[in-house]
């Protein structure tokens, strides 16, 4: 049926476009017209292939050959050899990641193995509001297998063998957590799905809940069977109305099919799921705070131990897992712990979903095996830095994480390496920053968030973070001293050392990691009173360039605090003490006589 027998897809991603990929498309079209083949062969520009390090990229369909590092002058060779004679141009073929012999079929093409979708396997593929489509993708088969072929202990064993660790941020081994919960005897136990996702940079749990709600329901049932619980609770933030509605539909459909409720699949296993809503509190991502919130109270954490697995919701053993952690469980049961632990690094198994955002071309959700490097994520899948600016830092772990720089780009991403590098995995928010971002302001931004979200129960976090934020504001206003930097460090270390819960124990990380990696910027703010990336408004100096100013008085009239003096047709002058750095003069001056430095 297809009119064209062949398509040449030229990568139009901004990195490739900046190395003349549209010229390549042009020359390919010209070549094809000359050979009179325009009716059979079509050339079109596509989005980014995620191979930016090796661009520009041309893909030939249906033969599925991948040409990399193509130049406009290669176009005639491609048309002559491949389009006409049907022979691939070996020199340009993509050699796959490990330099194996060139492979062209995308199923086994080295390029594609960058991302493996396990938690997101159904997202964007099935209709989330139709349980049959989920079942068609082996949905509930894992639950069926557990209930009919495996004992609860075997299920726990599988999860332990798989090496799965918590995706909420802490990385606690899930199998161990289930085992502890299963050991504690009680008349009632609870399985809780932590869908609070308070980290401002993360949105992967939302995508899973909106795209594949059943995977979470099935996993909770499996967990209920493994630890001996009959009641599941999903604690979801009120800011996700669509996810709430899709979960409700999914729960109803699952109940109609008897996959939730009494005698599931004819066995005597009973399990049901209810929804519990957050109300806007980042701290409720912490297990004990979440449990208090579910009990209708202020979301204040309590000391651990006792861990929720011992005494949690209503004092009963409670197993709390993150959405993404749960979404991988059915796959582990279906494809086996061995298969799952073959992916990832030695101590961090499987894949991790990252919410890639910030100054990056391909903002998006990615799921990469543990062990992928930051460089691959940012410069290949992410499509490099926007507007061709220079990479400066990537922030992982949100307000509890840290900033990593150029020298960390080749670290294999996993729980332990990121902590060793001074950041942490966190829930997966990954914000890329370029040369225009001031790291002191970024640290201040995160502290502003923590001060707003701290529950206020313990003094190091309630007051300490406020003092950190005040000191950082002090520095960005140009009043900081070198002694302040030392005090920043001591306060941060003590807050980490003494806070009651994870929020306070990790809130100083952005400060500590920016101090460690960008001390020069702090010093610039403190001693030279300069903000190298020009973000800190109070450190900007507006001055008038003598030879450019014609004395048209436009700036003087625009200045809200009349800090600009000078006669008509005379060179004007800005009084630095009065100037509030609003930039009105800069905007008004038609002769570019206002300098900002």
């Amino acid at each position, binding site marked *: *049926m*297809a*009119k*064209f027998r062949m*398509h040449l*897809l030229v*990568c*139009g991603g901004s990195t490739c476009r900046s190395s003349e990929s549209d010229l390549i498309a042009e020359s390919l079209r010209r070549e094809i017209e000359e050979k009179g083949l325009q009716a059979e062969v*079509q050339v*079109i*520009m*596509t*989005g*980014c*292939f*995620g191979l930016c390090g090796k661009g520009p990229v041309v*893909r030939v369909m249906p033969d599925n050959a991948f040409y990399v590092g193509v130049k406009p002058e290669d176009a005639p060779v491609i048309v002559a050899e491949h389009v006409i004679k049907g022979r691939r141009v070996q020199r340009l073929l993509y050699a796959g990641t490990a330099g194996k012999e060139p492979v062209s079929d995308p*199923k086994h093409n080295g390029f*594609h193995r*960058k*991302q*493996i*979708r396990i938690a*997101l*396997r159904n*997202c*964007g*593929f*099935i*209709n*989330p509001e*139709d349980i*049959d489509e989920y*079942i*068609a993708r*082996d*949905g*509930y*088969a894992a639950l*069926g297998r557990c*209930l*009919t072929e495996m004992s609860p202990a075997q299920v726990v064993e599988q999860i332990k063998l798989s090496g799965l660790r918590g995706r909420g941020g802490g990385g606690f081994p899930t199998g161990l957590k289930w085992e502890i919960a299963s050991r504690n005897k009680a008349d009632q136990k609870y399985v809780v799905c932590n869908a609070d996702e308070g980290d401002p940079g993360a*949105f992967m749990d*939302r*995508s899973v809940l*909106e*795209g594949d709600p059943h995977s979470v329901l099935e996993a909770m049932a499996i967990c209920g069977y493994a630890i001996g619980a009959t009641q599941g609770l999903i604690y979801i933030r009120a800011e996700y109305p*669509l*996810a709430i509605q899709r979960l409700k539909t999914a729960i109803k459909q699952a109940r109609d*099919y*008897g996959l939730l409720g009494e005698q599931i*699949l*004819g066995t005597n296993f009973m399990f049901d799921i209810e929804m519990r809503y957050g109300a806007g509190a980042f701290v409720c991502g912490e297990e004990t705070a979440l449990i208090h919130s579910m009990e209708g109270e202020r979301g204040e954490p309590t000391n651990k131990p006792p861990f929720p697995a011992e005494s949690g919701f209503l004092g009963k053993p409670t197993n709390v897992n993150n959405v993404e952690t749960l979404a991988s469980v059915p*796959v582990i049961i279906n494809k086996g712990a061995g298969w799952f632990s073959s992916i990832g690094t030695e101590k961090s198994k499987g894949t991790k979903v990252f919410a890639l955002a910030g100054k990056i*071309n*391909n*903002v*998006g*959700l990615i799921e990469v095996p543990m062990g992928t490097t930051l460089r691959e994520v940012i410069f290949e*899948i992410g499509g490099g830095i926007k507007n061709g600016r220079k990479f400066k830092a990537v922030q992982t772990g949100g307000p509890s994480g840290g900033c990593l720089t150029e020298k960390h780009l080749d670290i294999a991403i996993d729980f332990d390496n990121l902590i060793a590098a001074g950041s942490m995995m966190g829930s997966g928010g990954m914000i890329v920053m370029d040369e225009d971002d001031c790291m002191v302001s970024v640290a201040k931004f995160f502290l502003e968030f923590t001060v707003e979200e701290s529950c206020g129960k313990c003094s190091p976090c309630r007051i300490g973070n406020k003092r950190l934020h005040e000191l950082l504001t002090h520095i960005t206003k140009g009043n900081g001293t070198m002694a302040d930097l030392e005090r920043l460090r001591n306060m941060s270390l003590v807050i980490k050392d003494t806070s009651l819960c994870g929020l306070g124990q990790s809130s100083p990380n952005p400060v500590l990691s920016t101090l460690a990696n960008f001390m020069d910027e702090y010093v610039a703010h403190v001693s030279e009173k300069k903000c190298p990336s020009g973000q800190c408004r109070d450190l900007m100096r507006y001055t008038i360039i003598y030879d450019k100013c014609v004395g048209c008085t436009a700036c003087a009239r625009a200045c809200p605090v009349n800090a600009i003096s000078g006669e008509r047709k005379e060179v004007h002058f800005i009084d630095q003490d009065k100037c509030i750095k609003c930039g009105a003069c800069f905007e008004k001056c038609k002769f570019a006589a206002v300098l900002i430095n």
Partner: protein
Amino acid sequence: MGKLNSLADLTKIREESRHRIGLRAKSDSPEGLVQVRVAMATCGMAAGARTIMDFFADELDKRGIGAIVTPTGCMSYCYAEPTVEVQLPGTEPVVYGFVDLKRADEIIEKYIKNGELVEGIIPVNYETID
């Protein structure tokens, strides 16, 4: 189909729905239909996915093209929302990004009707376990 009372019931449903979806994808079968999947996550809808989905449903119907238009979750290409995956019977699905009404119309006319690719294809940069 009411309550599933055994693993066998589950397997039956799996086979049935796989068959149903499979049929749609086959070109030779009489039921070979064009499948249009629109990413309907919050972000997709904020970028206008609902109007795109309605457009596809109405226009394909009006133009007498046998098609199934279904919502899905997010396809993870935030920078290119709204994103739509189109699968002609017997071919690999193709994902289009930045789909506005103009491009949606182009997709129907050029790609669905006579298989001519349209600008703005988003190459699938991930492998999904089956």
